């Protein structure tokens, strides 16, 4: 989870050469400032969309019906659009990486939160995988009695989330809310998403699934918590925020953070863990938005976010186009061929992810693509995986072209103690 960056003296020398050779070209300082602007806009949009989700959740709670449940689900899907475009900020920015587990942790042992189909939630490494907090107001956690009578944002974030130090105990964030709105998808690699009935939120005798009062309390608390977490991150990228301060303080390190985010999301996370692994396991539980069958959108907007950072552009929720000095400008000034190739490869990955999105929207759901022996699904997913892997090599080239040296993309020690590397 840790991502480390360091810029070398070489980078500083390069900054000087920019000023000397190309007064009109973007300079690193303007590029990292615009990057912070993009982050600020995306997190602000994520917050706005989450507030709409909260309004829809409140309406569902006030009057549960097929319509209010559908509206809440639709608001959740809309809320994913700006958020997924922020995932490219994760790797490379410690403030985001340390925080993102609260809002987007996945995969989760959903049996921690609510009822699940018998035998479906096995995890031999997690004794809480079928705890069902909604049905269990009091329980023992690591030898401590927990009183969960009142389900509050604080209980979720401080006690339940990653309970017992296990990452699969995801109690908060988008996917916890997703599970509460959709329920488990029991269709395997067949068509259909989770199908939780609206009556799971009805109070009184018509309640299904048991403990509807606690389910409603959980949904409300988890939605409130998501909003306060997004408020924190939107502030971190606004003027005076810590995320902005970190990338702008040292523009060379900021540039490396930008490229680290692009490369780590492209390769290890998106192409590897989220797409190829799920396909090779033929496991619908391994799809990212597994309850809602919204995975095609999550993947697509992740890919779009990677390209956004390189091009310095983002289309806001209100349609405003945000553009400005970009990594692309900097790379092109040093080596036009690297820039041209990387731009073409980013376009190719976005197109490949769009092909998955379009197939899913035409009725060929992402979990169906994962079915063993489904050649059409395999070709769609591997097309995107290959495109993401290909662009990773060019992102490495951009790092080299800009004279940035990545000490360590993954380990943790050099972050805690940068001088240790040079001992």
């Amino acid at each position, binding site marked *: 989870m840790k991502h480390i960056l360091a810029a070398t003296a070489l980078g500083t020398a390069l900054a000087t050469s920019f000023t000397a050779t190309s007064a009109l070209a973007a300079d690193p300082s303007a590029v990292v400032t615009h990057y912070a602007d993009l982050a600020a806009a995306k997190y602000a949009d994520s917050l706005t969309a989450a507030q709409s989700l909260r309004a829809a959740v409140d309406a569902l709670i006030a009057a549960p019906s097929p319509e209010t449940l559908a509206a809440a689900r639709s608001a959740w899907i809309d809320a994913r659009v700006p958020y997924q475009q922020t995932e490219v900020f994760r790797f490379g920015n410690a403030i985001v990486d340390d925080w993102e587990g609260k809002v987007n942790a996945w995969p989760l042992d959903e049996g921690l939160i609510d009822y699940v189909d018998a035998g479906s939630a096995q995890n031999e490494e997690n004794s809480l995988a079928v705890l069902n907090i909604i049905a269990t107001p009091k329980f023992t956690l690591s030898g401590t009695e927990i009183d969960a009578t009142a389900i509050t944002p604080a209980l979720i974030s401080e006690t339940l989330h990653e309970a017992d130090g296990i990452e699969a105990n995801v109690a908060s964030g988008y996917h916890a809310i997703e599970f509460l709105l959709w329920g488990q998808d029991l269709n395997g690699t067949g068509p259909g998403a989770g199908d939780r009935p609206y009556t799971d939120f009805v109070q009184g005798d018509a309640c299904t699934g048991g403990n509807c009062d606690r389910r409603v309390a959980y949904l409300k608390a988890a939605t409130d918590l998501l909003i306060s977490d997004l408020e924190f991150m939107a502030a971190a990228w606004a003027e005076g925020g810590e995320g902005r301060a970190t990338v702008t303080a040292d523009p060379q390190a900021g540039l490396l953070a930008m490229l680290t985010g692009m490369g780590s999301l492209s390769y290890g996370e998106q192409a590897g863990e989220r797409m190829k692994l799920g396909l*090779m396991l033929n496991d619908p539980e391994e799809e990212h938005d597994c309850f809602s069958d919204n995975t095609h959108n999550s993947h697509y907007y992740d890919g779009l976010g990677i390209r956004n950072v390189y091009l310095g552009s983002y289309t806001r929720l209100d349609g405003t186009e945000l553009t400005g000095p970009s990594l692309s400008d900097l790379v092109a000034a040093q080596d036009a061929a690297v820039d041209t190739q990387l731009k073409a490869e980013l376009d190719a990955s976005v197109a490949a992810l769009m092909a998955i999105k379009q197939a899913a929207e035409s009725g060929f759901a992402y979990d169906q693509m994962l079915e063993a022996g489904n050649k059409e699904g395999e070709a769609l997913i591997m097309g995107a995986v290959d495109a993401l892997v290909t662009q990773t090599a060019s992102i490495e080239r951009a790092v080299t072209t800009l004279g940035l040296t990545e000490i360590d993309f993954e380990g943790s020690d050099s972050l805690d103690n940068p001088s240790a590397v040079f001992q």
Partner: protein
Amino acid sequence: MVKHLAFVFALLAAPVHADVADVVADHILPGYAAFAQATADLDRQAAASCTADTLRPAFQTAFDAWMAVQHLHLGPVEEAGRGLAIAFWPDPKGLGRKAQLGLMQGDPAKLTPEAFADQSVAARGLTGLERLLYPTTPWPADPCPLIRATTADLARLADEVQGGWTSGFADQLLTAGAQGNTRYLSKAEARQALFTVLVTGLAQLHDQRLGRPMGTFDRPTPERAEARASGRSLRNVLLSLQALRALATSLTEPAPQTQAALGHAIALAQNLDDPVFAGIATPTGRLKVEVLQQAVEQARQAALAEIGPALGVGIGFNALDGD
């Protein structure tokens, strides 16, 4: 002055520093050839008899051969999910056993080579075979057909990986920077790819092979060690360290700090009398594994500080970058 000149000559006379070509010729190609041979032997033996006792030695040999190359996360092994299928681990949700139960009791047509190649990677490869040859709970049906399907699949995968290297990928690495090579646009890119493999291999040893059984001090988790049923947990660590040392040696010489750190870690592993890391559950046993884990981290730091600059490259992106 004479002394100074002698020093210069000594430098000139020293063997030319190792590089990509040495890694390919001395480390990668022989490693994959041995793995292909070992899995072919295993498959032949499984065809003759599939009792667990008979097959275990060939299984152990094949696993040994895999450990000599498993860190090479580039080229044919990264295509078509071959690496994942050869050894899928960890598997915290027990997907492998579940899928194997389904295959054992389901349609035998799924065990034909073509159909089996499409099954979940969790059910296949060395990890799948280990569960069949060293069962911790009895299987409800005759595992023989699944054993044979798995050994055949493994031999096919090993053959494809070897073939992929000899009929194309080795050339791509070796002709890095030449016109027409679209994968590696400069020699530095090829060096960077192998350097990334080395550093990532050490990180994976630290975080997974050692880190998973370590758990936390309050909750050690030795049951999560790799290849526990076949008694290979420590052996895999040792063989992996030795393979990474071989890679480092072929990639760059001299690299005294890295070699010393790797040598130290290897000596620790050789002297650790704890084949499946069961000792992690005790304070003294845990300390020993922790010391080994620290030695691996020191080797990684040494490689970063010494080999990267010697090769003129930084580390590239790797598969562990995700969360």
